[in-house]
């Protein structure tokens, strides 16, 4: 372009000094955003005039740490088409290089030790570039110009296979996979456990050994064309699957060509496309074109990232290990997105998205929110950026808690931010709460406790930049209410730091404590008892009658208030209906019964009504609907129709209640969130219903509606609360 100057990478971003003829300089500034490389994101360009100097040529000035600015460590980016072409070209010098990357693709977050982003501060530092790689790295015109993880087959990391010795690691892995055995594969964010998705025995063995008896398993297909045989994939979803984030996308299943053991409780299939070069090489020459790719861990432990650790921990599951020697600094699970008629919904925001921040409408203080105990993520805010962490997992054991603490530290280093306050859930027994209490005490920081459902609502308000009060419909399994009861289906008025409970699901006593979630007949009996006033054999459908013998014990416990908290839980109501209709017996894993209920539902006109009792709070009472379901069963209506009718009636009740509250409080916007809205039928039913009433529904599209999105909401709410206290 005939311009001279210099560019340097620093913690505030990229600083470019450019000089030359005016028109060219202006064109350069324009093109900076317009012609940015595909994987980059230019958030803003600010140009100021500088004195002309005597210079020629364009120089790269080494990075320096400068004062506080905006930090961007990029998320990991799926391998790009250009790199794939080179890797598959027998004449290219990177032919067959399983770690190929360039400025536009490759690992970032998972290999970074600290900022600014430079090779010495990544796990590529033990691999000094060979002369040819250096030449590309230094060449401004090359696609590998300053691509930090660049290497080649000569100087780069290597694949190995265990058990060894083995001189063809990929060939060994392929032979095991085609032979119906299980291989642990080290990828970008950690290890995967893989097996042939067509082989029923392989899948059954994987489930048994991993301890994942029934949860859906993600499937990586060799190509989009192969995936299309097994899933209905609309164009937008195809772009998401093939894009830089390469998440797992849950799509409607098509036909039954894969072994049914892949996802027994749902008619969706979790589709993944090869996103690391090693995946592409693996499929090249593999007979099967569909591999189960589940995270390399036992049950819900954190994902394995280290070779030795994997062999030790996964040795009882995997028959072989495809390893490499590029360290994974930070483990990061695949992201999971559910494709619904209402648009894509995050079930898990992780690889490909983290650590890119979620934009907040206003600048806030640095706050660390610790999230909840299930599907934990934490969140650190800084300015207008909310850095939500990758998926941590269920905080129910020491190992995960240790991982949590370590990641909190790591993110603070990457973002160069220490919080001035902490936020956590109201629940005193959450491990996250206890950790936050300890940390706050140790650091002398204030701790703000945020009610669970209010936090969910706050996340949506922040995401959409809403500045007026809203009605929020938050439905999930359980969250502690400010009255000490179990809340789970709440209508709130949210106005920044001020919020109020306007309505909720009829409360009942849920017998059995934790068992109420695992064994659906408990909430089922409790709800039927409420609906009918009494439980007797004739009222119950046949498949429940043999349980009736347990009822007196339950009733006694409920009456005495023993282990039977008062609850307004949507999740347990779904469980109860799933049990009543015979589609589930309980939750072998979180959400199983409602998932099965959703899977069995079809659109239905079968008449079911709820009753809405005005008052403060307003109560949504499913009693008439439950009676209607019993009648439907007696009358021989199909389960599919009854399940669909239940969803419809629940959605109608929520919409009706929201409409009344909006009218009373003269509001027009309704926020929808909570784990129950991972159910596409509910989300569509409520959002469409609200629109028909002239209201504006908003739901989370940047973070999960379930507890994976709790931390973001806690941070936002805490920032509002602190601002209101000081200001």
């Amino acid at each position, binding site marked *: 372009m005939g311009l001279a100057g210099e560019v340097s990478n620093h913690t505030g971003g990229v600083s470019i000094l450019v000089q030359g003829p005016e028109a060219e300089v202006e064109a350069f500034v324009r093109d900076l955003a317009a012609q940015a490389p595909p994987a980059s994101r230019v958030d803003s360009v600010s140009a100021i005039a500088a004195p002309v100097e005597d210079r020629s040529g364009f120089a790269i000035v080494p990075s320096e740490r400068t004062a506080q600015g905006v930090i961007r460590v990029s998320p990991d980016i799926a391998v790009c088409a250009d790199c794939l072409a080179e890797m598959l070209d027998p004449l290219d010098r990177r032919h067959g290089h399983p770690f190929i990357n360039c400025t536009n693709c490759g690992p970032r977050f998972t290999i970074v030790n600290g900022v600014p982003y430079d090779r010495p501060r990544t796990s590529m530092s033990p691999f000094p570039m060979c002369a040819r790689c250096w030449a590309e790295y230094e060449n401004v015109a090359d696609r590998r110009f300053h691509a930090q993880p660049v290497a080649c087959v000569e100087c780069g990391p290597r694949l190995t296979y265990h058990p060894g010795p083995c001189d063809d690691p990929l060939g060994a892995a392929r032979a095991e996979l085609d032979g119906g055995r299980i291989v642990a594969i080290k990828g970008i964010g950690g290890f995967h456990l893989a097996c*042939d998705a*067509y*082989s*029923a025995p392989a899948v059954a063995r994987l489930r048994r050994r991993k301890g994942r008896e029934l949860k859906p398993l993600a499937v990586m297909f060799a190509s989009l064309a192969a995936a*299309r*045989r*097994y899933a209905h994939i609309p164009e937008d979803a195809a772009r998401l699957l093939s894009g830089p984030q390469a998440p797992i996308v849950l799509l409607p299943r*098509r*036909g*039954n*060509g*894969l*072994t049914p053991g892949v996802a027994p409780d749902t008619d969706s299939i979790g589709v993944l496309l090869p996103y690391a070069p090693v995946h592409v090489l693996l499929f090249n020459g593999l*007979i*099967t*074109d*569909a591999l189960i790719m589940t995270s390399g861990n036992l049950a819900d432990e954190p994902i394995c990232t280290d070779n030795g650790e994997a062999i030790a921990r996964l040795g009882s599951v995997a028959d072989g290990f495809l390893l490499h020697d590029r360290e994974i600094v930070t483990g990061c699970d695949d992201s999971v997105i559910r494709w619904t008629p209402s648009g894509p919904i995050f079930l898990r925001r992780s690889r490909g998205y983290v650590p890119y921040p979620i934009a907040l409408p206003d600048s806030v203080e640095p706050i660390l929110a610790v999230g909840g105990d299930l599907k934990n993520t934490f969140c650190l805010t800084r300015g207008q950026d909310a850095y939500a962490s990758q998926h941590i997992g269920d905080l129910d054991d020491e190992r995960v808690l240790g991982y949590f603490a370590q990641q909190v530290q790591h993110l603070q280093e990457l973002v160069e931010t220490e919080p001035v306050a902490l936020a956590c859930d109201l629940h005193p027994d959450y491990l996250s709460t206890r950790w936050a209490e300890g940390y706050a005490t140790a650091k002398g920081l204030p701790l703000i406790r945020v009610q669970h459902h209010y936090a969910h609502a706050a996340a949506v308000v922040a995401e959409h930049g809403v500045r007026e009060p809203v009605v929020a419909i938050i439905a999930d399994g359980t969250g502690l209410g400010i009255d000490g009861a179990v809340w789970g289906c709440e209508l709130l008025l949210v106005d920044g730091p001020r919020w109020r409970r306007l309505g909720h699901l009829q409360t009942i006593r849920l017998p059995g404590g934790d068992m109420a979630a695992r064994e659906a007949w408990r909430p089922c009996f409790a709800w039927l008892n409420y609906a009918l006033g009494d439980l007797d054999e004739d009222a119950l459908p046949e498949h429940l009658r043999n349980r009736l013998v347990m009822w007196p014990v339950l009733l006694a416990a409920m009456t005495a208030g023993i282990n039977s908290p008062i609850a307004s839980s949507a999740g347990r109501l779904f469980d109860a209906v799933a049990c009543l209709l015979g589609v589930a017996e309980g939750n072998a894993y979180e959400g199983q019964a409602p998932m099965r209920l959703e899977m069995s539902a079809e659109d239905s006109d079968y008449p079911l009504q709820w009753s809405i009792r005005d008052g403060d709070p307003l109560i949504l009472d499913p009693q008439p609907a439950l009676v209607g379901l019993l009648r439907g069963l007696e009358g021989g209506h199909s389960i599919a129709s009854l399940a669909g009718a239940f969803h419809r009636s629940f959605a109608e009740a929520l919409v009706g209640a929201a409409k009344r509250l909006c009218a009373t409080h003269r509001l027009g916007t309704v926020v929808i969130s909570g784990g129950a809205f991972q159910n596409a039928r509910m989300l569509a039913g409520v959002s469409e219903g609200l629109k028909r009433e002239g209201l504006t529904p908003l739901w989370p599209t940047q973070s999960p509606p379930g507890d994976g999105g709790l931390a973001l909401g806690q941070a936002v709410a805490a920032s509002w609360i602190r601002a209101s206290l000081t200001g």
Partner: protein
Amino acid sequence: MMDASALRDAGLGRTIAEDIARLSRQPLKLMEVCGSHSHTIARYGIRELLPPTIELVPGPGCPVCVAPQEEIDLAIDLARRPEVVVTTFGDLVRVPGTNGSMAEVRAEGGDVRIVLSPMDALETARREPERMVVFVAIGFETTAPGVAATLRAAADDGVTNLALLIAHKTMPAPMRALVAGGECGVQGFICPGHVSAIIGSEAYRFLADDYGVACAVAGFEPLDVLLAVRSLVIQHEAGKPTVDVEYARAVRPEGNQRALSVLLEVFEPVDARWRGLGQIPDSGLRLRAPYAEFDVESRLGIQRIPADPHPACRCGDILRGVLAPPKCPAFGRTCTPDHPLGPCMVSSEGACAAEWQYRP
């Protein structure tokens, strides 16, 4: 006289196979287009005997497998009609259609009867004059003349309650389509044995003359097949493609003129749709005007509704010779004879069924 044991002799077979290895220098892609050849090849492990220069793939040689989804669906729909008796050859019964299979319809109470000959269908029609007896007329030129003869007999005897679902296809046309299409790259055909007994070996002359593709008509013993492969290698190495008849005991250059004339008295060629290969001109049969009343589709006014096979099923790729059965990801895993995704695994002439039956 008909002592074919020499044609199954293992020692002779190995010798011929070694000879093939010695003769074959350039890479050569061959295709068999007959289900019974696929069986012989799988049963006697002939692919494993051939040198690495030779790739032998199965083609569209099974008349049940090449029936497009809509023909299968039509047969299943007919079976659901209470007034219809469906008579069919056995291996159609478990082929999965869009909504179940004939076997499932039979289990639900549909009247589906397996016959060994079209004459059995005629006999059924005679015995049960109050029912409409539909015969699923499927098969290549080996079977169609018998079906034609049956219709002549039915017409002569004034039988009115017999109708045919015509699913017949004819052989040389798909071979031309595969070669002209260029996708599968076949350079030599092991031509079907019994189809050739009817149509004659000269029916394949155009493949050698116009397309330079070597042809050898083979019998069904393992040595028949090996001799045919040897002939194809010799033709290819010499650059002189022709039509060699290894099965001369049953196949004449002009075929069986009498059978052909019976066939053409009743049927005429028509364009037809093949599973996996699409529409091929002059590759099917339809009833000539004097016999039109025997066609069930016009008789009952039913339409074929084009339908797609199971999305995971690769039978189409297998029939086009671009995917070998053991390389199909579903082979033996989610597709087995007990729960097939498509016809190739469940028809007695299917390439996948043959590989499965004789897997080591």
